[in-house]
């Protein structure tokens, strides 16, 4: 009984992690059809921002939830102005350029922070479920992921900005016709996407040892999750994160963490072979 509860929590946590690490990429891809391969490095920078801010005496939650997203969002803004905006509509070129940026950020972080593993400890204590100790921080991550999805829904459905963004998502020329500069919309979207990446990196920082190459561990998984999700932003994100999270956790518990990761990858290949345009191209059509 205790064990099944623990496994349930681990599954939820796995799904939440996937949602968290993919959200930034999904927003940028869903709205702008840009695949930001520097997404992992944005997360890494979010982690470093948190650690640096904490070491300067800032409260760890403020650092994670406010400072890191803000800083990474601003970095994203600079990136968008300098690089991305010259490449709109050229999917492959943006992928290559952001791949270059990812290498650039790894190099820059190495020069600034060095390759030594750093990190902060988790700010939430563990607790017991029957005979088992559980990492209390897992709950925090699940909560953040839920809040994130709700916030995305609220913004896209409920607000004026969301309406414009959805319009731009469907047809960029329409937003322009309505008098909104697509340039501005893209800029704002990229800022939000980057901030979400920074948030994910910050929130995950206490769980992992951080090095400049940490981003590489996330990019493949988030890339797969977003692409497999398909055109609908939120429905796609949730459906693919759920399927991959559950598949990988089943194999993790039954065999080993490596098999869990391999199972996730194999599931992705099979899924894309069956539904080449992603899950939401077949189900949840026309949803957000």
């Amino acid at each position: 009984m205790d064990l099944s509860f623990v496994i349930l929590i681990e599954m939820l946590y796995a799904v939440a992690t996937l949602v968290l690490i993919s959200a930034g990429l999904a927003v940028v891809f869903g709205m702008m059809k840009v695949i930001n391969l520097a997404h992992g490095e944005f997360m890494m920078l979010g982690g470093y921002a948190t650690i640096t801010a904490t070491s300067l005496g800032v409260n760890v939650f403020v650092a994670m939830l406010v400072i890191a997203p803000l800083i990474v969002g601003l970095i994203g803004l600079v990136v968008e102005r300098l690089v991305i905006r010259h490449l709109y509509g050229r999917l492959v070129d943006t992928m290559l350029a952001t791949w270059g940026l990812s290498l650039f950020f790894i190099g820059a972080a190495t020069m600034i922070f060095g390759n030594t593993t750093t990190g902060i400890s988790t700010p939430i204590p563990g607790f017991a479920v029957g005979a088992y100790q559980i990492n209390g921080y897992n709950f925090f991550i699940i909560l953040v992921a839920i809040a994130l999805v709700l916030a995305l829904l609220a913004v896209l459905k409920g607000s004026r900005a969301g309406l414009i963004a959805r319009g731009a998502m469907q047809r960029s020329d329409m937003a322009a016709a309505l008098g909104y500069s697509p340039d501005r919309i893209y800029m704002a979207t990229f800022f939000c996407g980057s901030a979400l990446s920074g948030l994910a990196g910050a929130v995950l920082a206490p769980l992992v040892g951080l090095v400049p190459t940490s981003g590489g561990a996330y990019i493949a998984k988030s890339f797969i999750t977003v692409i497999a999700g398909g055109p609908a932003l939120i429905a796609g994100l949730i459906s693919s994160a759920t399927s991959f999270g559950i598949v990988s956790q089943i194999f993790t518990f039954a065999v080993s963490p490596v098999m869990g990761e391999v199972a996730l990858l194999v599931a992705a290949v099979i899924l894309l072979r069956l539904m080449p345009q992603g899950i939401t191209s077949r189900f949840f059509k026309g949803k957000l």
Partner: protein
Amino acid sequence: MSLNRRNFLGAAAALTASPLLPRAAFAADSIKLGAIHDTSGIFDAYGKPMDQAVRLAVQEINAAGGILGREVEVFAYDTQSDMALYSQYGQQLTRQDRVDVVHGGILSASREAIRQTMRKTKTPYFYNVLYEGGVCDRNIFINGVTPAQQVEALVPYAMGKAAGKKVYILAADYNYGQITARWIQKFVADNGGEVVGTDFFPLDVSDFGSTLAKIQGAAPDLVIAPLVGGAHLSFFRQWAAAGMKGKIPLASTTLGVGNEQKVLTAEEGDGIMVAYNYSQELDTPANTAFKAAWAKAYGSSDNIHETAVSTYQGVKTWAKAVDMAGSLDRDALIAAMESGISIDGPSGKITVDAKTHHAVLDVHLMEFKGQKMQVIETLPQRQPIDTQAVCDLGTNPNDNTQYEIQI
């Protein structure tokens, strides 16, 4: 930055082979020492201090008049944590620079990438890193601890601290981890214990949530975790975050080699048991002097770690052997090394084992405390029993294998 520039100038000077320093005191041609380490890329936390250790040792040797009256010159290359570059620079060192000795290599893969080149070109090769053991090659000298040396000391001590006899092993999934895990299993059994689970993790695994649940399901009395690298560090974090610390004692044969005790907080690290050849906290005159010299050369002695000390000691041992041999001839050097030569280094006495070309050395039992590795007990002059079981260069000098030691 100043450090980087020094490295750069050093390399540049080595490349042009015309040091600007006054060299009147030395004979015309210098002795060339090749150094090959990852001073950038993901392994630079290990490689940078090793590179510094080579330079410090050479600096001291030259200050004392060089070897055989000749100056020692360093030819250093940064392999950027890329195994392909080891092959490349290994060739560069032996064929182009024609160095007299090579020190370096960090991962076992990097050692294997250059070992045959060194052997073919008859360039003596010093590998100064703790590793999985078993290399049997007359051309190589190894002064790091091997699993048996560590595990033999660590397991009885750690089991003594545990409430019962059940042990769970979490190891890095590569050669070193696999072999170490087997030695742990052997010594746990020898000490009357039982291994209730063994899990292996590739070096990029960083999420140990399911593992924590699994371990708790098995309810061991002791966890031994030879985990390696930055990603695996998160195990120790997640272990503490789940509140497992204080419930089940934890030991490792690897944590601390890259100064991980300074990355973990005291709350996360305190109480973890380890066994190494070196700790910064060793209170010996040799270590105090070494740390002072390091601090003088590089500003701070904080980044000294075990493999840096091994490298320093490797260079010093080589220098002593060359002096003894009276020439740079490889076979004369090997004869001198095999004569039972030993030095007193920062980590204690290091003796070359003639039979295996490994080292007889002190193993220190330690515990993490306040981001330091406190020495609990020193076990003097432990033999490399694992490699000795398979390798005898005395009777079989042409051996050129890395043995997988059957336990």
